[in-house]
């Protein structure tokens, strides 16, 4: 097969790689992108997008269940709902499919050549791609590694059969009656909550003393309360030890050392993700590493000239929007523009019930960093719009420097609060002070008023509390 020579080759078409390739194409760079699977990466195919689809379906079904129970304060009642989960999954797959083809056509529109296959470094300037029609050699002046991350497998409980990862969970034929979730991180809790709403009896097993360890207790409290209401059993400080001998249960060990078996139809293992640094020839180019990740500098350059790395393979937080921002930046750097990573904050959103958003520093993190802070917190229980949405759980919290009111962090937990993440991030990137937020008119009636009120609270003159 004829060799391809290009200015830029991108390995991996996830939210980092495909954005990098599109931006490079826009900038007139001769670009090739290599992806073995479908365009869009983990995020689009088996991560963010499909999980949100299932979560939405679960919310809708759960609402119908509540109406059927006849105790809904809205006075709505109807017959008991049923769900054809295979149809739900098919609907989800159509969304994914649309987005897949959207990414493909965007790449095409930007003039990016897509090569389907598994890429491997031959040397720092050459990739070998195993395609359906044979080996394709790509010679590129610049290569961007955007290989992403992979699910972490428990060695004593490998994936297969009833032990599933999030990927399989999002493609189940039917809702499992009993589901055990190993790992109380955001993936496990998002899916655990969804399946609980779909009717599963869910148990979450977390080895650490608390769930969602990245968020403080204040933020997770409404989530825990909700899990309890949904009948989800959360066991913290408990280790998964393996599959029960009949394959229909999970053996656990409590903090006291007692071993028990939890019966479960499916065991969803969500114990984290690891950077995908194997299988593409890292050993051929011998890049410097930072722990399990590829070491990069503030321009996403690796230790080898002409090779960049972006996204999950480069470190925490392993989030799609971080990869996207890096990909865009790297494309511009390759185009000769002066760029470097100068973001103040990377927002993190957790689509539990209620949702959690965190941008910048929490009060504790700020204090640990030696910053004296003032904190303003406003509960949605005092927000009119939240009441009308039956979403009174949660709050918005603003963290600012005590000396000059510069906002250093914004967190919130509440129904639908993910959509407020944009305004939180904007405030941080614009280096807003409390007065900036307090002095901006926030439309009434919206949940966003809680943000303004939190800033006012920090300034000492909240109106509605």
């Amino acid at each position, binding site marked *: 097969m004829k060799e391809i020579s290009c200015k830029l080759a991108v390995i991996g078409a996830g939210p980092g790689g495909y954005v990098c390739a599109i931006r490079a194409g826009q900038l007139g760079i001769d670009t090739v992108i290599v992806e073995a699977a479908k365009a869009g990466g983990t995020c689009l195919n088996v991560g963010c997008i499909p999980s949100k689809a299932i979560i939405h379906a679960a919310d809708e079904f759960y609402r119908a269940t509540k109406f059927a129970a006849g105790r809904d304060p809205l006075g709505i009642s109807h017959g008991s709902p049923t769900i054809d989960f295979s149809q739900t999954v098919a609907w989800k797959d159509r969304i994914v499919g649309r987005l897949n083809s959207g990414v493909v056509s965007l790449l095409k529109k930007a003039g990016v050549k897509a090569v389907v296959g598994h890429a491997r470094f031959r040397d720092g300037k050459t990739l070998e791609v195993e395609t359906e029609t044979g080996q394709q050699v790509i010679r590129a002046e610049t290569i961007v590694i955007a290989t992403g991350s992979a699910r972490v497998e428990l060695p004593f409980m490998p994936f297969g059969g009833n032990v599933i990862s999030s990927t399989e969970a999002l493609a189940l034929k039917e809702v499992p009656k009993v589901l055990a979730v190993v790992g109380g991180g955001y993936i496990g809790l998002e899916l655990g909550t969804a399946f609980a709403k779909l009717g599963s009896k869910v148990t979450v097993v977390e080895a650490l003393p608390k769930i969602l360890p990245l968020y403080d207790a204040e933020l997770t409290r409404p989530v825990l309360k909700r899990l309890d209401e949904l009948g989800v059993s959360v066991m913290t400080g408990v280790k998964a030890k393996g599959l029960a001998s009949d394959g229909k249960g999970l053996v656990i060990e409590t903090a006291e050392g007692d071993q028990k078996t939890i019966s479960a139809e499916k065991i969803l293992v969500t114990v984290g993700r690891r950077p995908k640094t194997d299988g593409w020839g890292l050993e051929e180019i011998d890049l410097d590493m930072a722990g399990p990740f590829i070491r990069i500098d503030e321009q996403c350059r690796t230790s080898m000239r002409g090779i960049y790395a972006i996204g999950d393979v480069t470190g925490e937080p392993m989030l799609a929007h971080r990869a996207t921002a890096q990909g865009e930046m790297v494309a511009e750097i390759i185009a000769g523009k002066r*760029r470097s990573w100068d973001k103040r904050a990377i927002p993190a959103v957790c689509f539990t019930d209620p949702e959690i958003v965190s941008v910048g520093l929490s009060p504790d993190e700020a204090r640990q960093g030696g910053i004296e802070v003032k904190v303003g917190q406003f509960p949605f229980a005092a927000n009119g719009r939240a009441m009308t949405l039956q979403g009174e759980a949660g709050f918005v919290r603003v963290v600012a*420097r005590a000396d000059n009111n510069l906002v250093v962090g914004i967190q919130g937990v509440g129904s639908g609060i993910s959509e407020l993440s944009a305004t939180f991030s904007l405030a941080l*990137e614009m*280096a*807003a002070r409390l007065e900036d937020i307090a*002095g*901006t008119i926030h439309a009434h009636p919206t949940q966003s008023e809680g943000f303004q009120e939190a800033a006012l609270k920090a300034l000492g003159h909240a109106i509605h509390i």
Partner: protein
Amino acid sequence: MAEFIIKMPDVGEGVAEAELIEWHVKVGDLVREDTILAAVMTDKATVEIPSPVEGTITWLGAEIGDTVAVGSPIVKIEVAGSAGEVAGGDGQPAGEPSNAAGATGVSSPEADADEDTPTPSPSPQGGGELGEPGMKGTASSAASSKADASAPSSSVVAPAPPDTPTRSAPSLEAANRGDPDAGDAVGDDAGPNATTAVRPGSAASGTPTSPSPVWGGVRGGGSIASTGTASADLGSVSTAPAGRASSTTSPLIPRPTGEKPLASPAVRLRAKEAGIDLRQVHGTGPAGRITHEDLDQFISRGAQQPSPAGQQPNTSVEEIKVVGLRRRIAEKMSRAKARIPHITYVEEVNVEALEELRARLNAERHPDRPKLTILPFLMRAMVKAIAEQPQINAIFDDDAGIIHRHGGVHVGVATQTPSGLMVPVVRHAEARDLWDCAREVNRLADAARSGTASREELTGSTITITSLGAMGGIATTPVINYPEVAIVGVNKIMVRPVWDGQQFIPAKMMNLSSSFDHRVIDGWDAAVFVQRLKALLETPALIFVE
């Protein structure tokens, strides 16, 4: 009223012209009798010109560095009509022209003269002429003023300037108005004073005023290029709430080292594109945020903003006019290097014996006698060597093609003075003994350093000694004191290991670095001369043997 004209005086020595090297006064200055007006230089002597009268300077007739013929008018002074009127100005400090003029109660001709001179005028545009220190704090002030623009209050302090063509002018005006103190000052028609009163802190706490014409002016200026509209909008939105509270916090909190500069993504992008490290940029926005305007200012002033981070490039260029002694040195050095093909010969001299003798002589000297340095010994050695090689002690008139071989050995001694290199001359070294040479060297060096050396004392050398003395240095490449043909350079005495045939022994060694005019001195002769000096200095008794 009378005009008194001061002419370039005859500074003696038969010179027809003199170079003006320094003005001590400027137009508008009030001078009294004997106030030094100017300094002029003839060859190497500096002469100060005092004022013979009391009055106000109205005209200066030369630029620094100009060569002025003797008899040319150089200063005009308006002499006050009566002593009483002049006395009124006595208490005024010199150098404040408008005050001085006002206080002296001068009549109309003098006032006219003042107005013709480019003295600072208290017009609104005066702010635009202010230098960078004034500019520094103004952006925040301007920002807070903009913020105030949205406030309903409208206590007008001063009318907007009729014409605000540049961006700096309106922002300064805005700054003035943002400052309550400055506002008072503006009322007193003292624009320049107002700007000096602008401090960021006080400006930020400014009371609501009505700067909307100014704000409009800034906008209308449109000189923020493509981002103009965006930044203007941004400014009005983001600084509005900040302005209210800025009285509680100073916007000029120094950024701790290592902390990311505060700037919106748009500002960061612009800085990146322009290759500017935002850590170098002073942020005037709330909490030290770097605004588009800060970036504009930083770019327009060429990255000279001091940053709390310490090291930064200094791109300033200072223009220094080469005048006076420095110009003469420059000319002479150029001529020497352009015309004379130098041969420089370096030899080491064991000065153990010489140093021992010198120490002895110094220890036992009569209190009247000067302390001996190496120089008088070297002079005497040179006299001795020159007696054998008279071609070394000469003036080569290369234009005429004539060598003037001098019988008298007039030794120039290169001397560093506060104003630069001077070469006083020890005349007739051949007729002076060791102590006399030493005494003369000391006297001349003092005279040169204090600027009292006469023209005679600074000219007429036939050979020169140069010594960087205590500065050390192994060798030098001395530049011949044109039109002489030789210069002897003395390097520092150092204890070095010396092979005495059997072993290394520590010895006080001194290098001589000497240059010769190779047109008239062959290398061989140069070497013979230096070797002779070496022999004499190593066995100092030979110096004194007739």
